[in-house]
C-alpha cells in the first residue's frame, strides 16, 4: 500500500468570482506588482500553495484537467497576430508556476499532470511514489468562457493544496493511501476530489481500474 499523512490542507472555493475580484481578494498573498500579470488560476493555486511555503526539497505535484482556460482562449483569439504573453501563460503548468516564480521559489521535483477520469488517481500515485520527505499536492481550475460549451474548458473554479509527509507528525489531519484491488473500473473527477478535501469528507473506493483510494480525516 502507498500512503502518506496529510499535515496541512488549504482550499479555495471562489464560486463565480470574476478575475478583478480575485485579484483584489488575493493581492495580499503575493509580492507587490506581480498580481496584475497573473491569471485567475495562477492566483487561486498560488495563494493556497503559498501557504504551505514550498521548499527546494519538496516534491510538487500539480493537477489540473484544463489548466489555463482563459489564457488559452485569449491566445486562440489573438491570431493571426499571436500574443507572446498569452502563449507562454497558456502553457501547462503555468497555473502553478506563476506564484512560485513570483516568490522565486525553486523546487527540485515538479510533476504537473493533466487528464480526465484518472487524473486524481495519477496525481495521488505520483505524490505517494515521491521519495522526498514532504510532498505538496495541489491543483485547481478556473472557469473558461467560450470553450466551456465545447467541453474544452472548466465550468467551475477551485483550488487545493495539501502537505503530505511519510510519517505521522504531530498535528496530522488526515491519511491518504492507494491500495491495489481487483475492481475493474473506477474514476474520480478532480472537482469531486476537491469537494472531498474542501469539506473534509472521508472516501474509500475505486479511483482507477485496480486502484482504491482511501482518504481519512483524523
Amino acid at each position, binding site marked *: 500500500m502507498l500512503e502518506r499523512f496529510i499535515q496541512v490542507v488549504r482550499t479555495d472555493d471562489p464560486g463565480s468570482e470574476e478575475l478583478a475580484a480575485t485579484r483584489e481578494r488575493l493581492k495580499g498573498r503575493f509580492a507587490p506588482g506581480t498580481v496584475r500579470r497573473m491569471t485567475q488560476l495562477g492566483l487561486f493555486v498560488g495563494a493556497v500553495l503559498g501557504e504551505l511555503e514550498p521548499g527546494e526539497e519538496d516534491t510538487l505535484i500539480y493537477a489540473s484537467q484544463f489548466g489555463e482556460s482563459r489564457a488559452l482562449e485569449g491566445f486562440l483569439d489573438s491570431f493571426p497576430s499571436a500574443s507572446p504573453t498569452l502563449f507562454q501563460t497558456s502553457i501547462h503548468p503555468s497555473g502553478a508556476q506563476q506564484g512560485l516564480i513570483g516568490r522565486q521559489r525553486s*523546487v527540485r521535483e515538479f510533476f504537473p499532470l493533466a487528464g480526465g477520469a484518472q487524473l486524481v488517481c495519477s496525481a495521488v500515485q505520483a505524490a505517494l511514489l515521491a521519495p522526498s520527505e514532504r510532498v505538496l499536492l495541489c491543483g485547481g481550475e478556473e472557469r473558461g468562457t467560450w470553450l466551456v460549451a465545447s467541453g474544452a474548458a472548466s465550468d467551475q473554479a477551485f483550488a487545493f493544496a495539501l502537505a503530505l509527509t511519510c510519517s505521522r507528525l504531530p498535528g496530522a489531519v488526515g491519511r491518504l493511501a492507494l491500495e491495489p484491488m481487483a475492481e475493474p473500473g473506477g474514476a474520480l473527477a478532480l472537482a469531486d476530489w476537491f469537494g472531498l478535501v474542501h469539506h473534509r469528507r472521508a472516501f474509500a473506493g475505486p479511483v482507477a481500474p485496480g486502484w482504491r483510494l482511501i482518504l481519512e480525516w483524523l
Partner: protein
Amino acid sequence: MDTSTLNSPVLLAACDCLTPFGDANATHAALVRGERALQLVPVLGGEGGDPVPLALLPGRALDETNPPAWLHSLQTMLAPVAGPGWGTARRPVCVTSSNFGVGSLYAFRRTGEQAHAAHGTAHGSVELVRRALGWGENVAIFSHACVSAHLGLIHAARLLAEGAADEALVVSYDFLSPFVTGGFHALKILNADFPAPYQDRATGSIGLGDGAGYAVLSRQRGDLALAAHSLHNEMHHFTANRPDGAGFAAALAPLVAAAAGCRLWVKGHGTGTLEAGRLEVAALARAFPGAPLVGWKGSLGHTLGSCGLVELAIVAASLRAGCTPGTVGSASPTFVDTVALAPFANAAFDGVICASNAFGGAHAALLLSHA
C-alpha cells in the same frame, strides 16, 4: 540517496521514435549522414505568414485535420508494442506531451467545426489515442513543456521500483500546428534562420519538429539501463534561466555522483538559442569535463514535450550502432571545443547523459548506460 536518483536501474525493454526521417534507426542513419529535416514552411500553415524552419512528417500539413492526420503515424510507430494489457494497473501507460491535441483546438477556433474540439484538450487527445491503441484506462498524463517526457520516464520507473507495476509504457507525442508555431514566432525565436545548436553566432534561433517516441520500462528485460534521473525547477522566470546557470548545475549535480568513474558522452538540449545554449554548455563542461556534446535539434527541430523520448530513442540507436551522430546544422566556432560536429565512435564510452530544458527554468537529465 538524492531524491532524484533511482534505487536501482530500470531497463529499457523497447524504445523507438518517429521523426520526418522515420524510426529511430532511420533517423540515426540520416543524422550520421548529416541530413537536415527542417524546411522553411509558412508559420501559419494554410493561412501563410513568414517562412520558418519546421520538420513535418512527410505529407503532413501544419493545419490539423479531423481526425488528426498524425494518429495513423502514431499507431504505426507503436505497432511493435501493440497488444493487450497496456493501460491496466500492472501495465500502466504514461502519456507525455506539451501540445497533445491543441492543433485541433486551433482548427476549432478557425473553422468552428465542433468535431475538432473533442480532442483539443490533453485528456480528449489522449482518449482518442487510447481508444485507437486499445489501451485500458490506467493512463497517466504528464505535461511540463519540454521536459514532459522525462517526467513520464521517472513516474514509470518509480512504479516499477515500488513493485506497483510489472512493466510500463511511456509514450510521448508532439505534432506541430499554427498554435505552437505562431506562439514561438511571436516570441521571436522562431524565424527564417535555421537553428545551429551550440554555434557561437550573432543571433540565435530555433526550429520545430513533429516527433513521437515510446519506451517500455521493465525490471526484467532490456540491454540498456536508465541508471539515474534528475530534475530541477528554477522558478526564476517564464522564459529565461537564472543568469548564473545555477539551475543547469543543480539539475546535473546528482548525475555527476551517479556517473562517477564513467566515461560519458552527452546528448544536450541545444535548441539553437544563444543564452540558454551558453549556460547549458558551461554547466555540462563543469559537470562532465571533456565529455563530447551533441545536439540534434539543428536537423530534427525541437520536438517540444517529446524531445526527451525522441532523442532517447536516437541515443539508444546510437549505442547499438556504435556511432553517435554529430551536431547537425552547426559549424565552428562553437561555445566549447567539446561540441562534436561530426559523428564519432562510442564503443569506448560507459554511458550517456541525456538532458532537456523547458519554460520556467525546468531542467531534466538522465543517465543511460549498458545494462
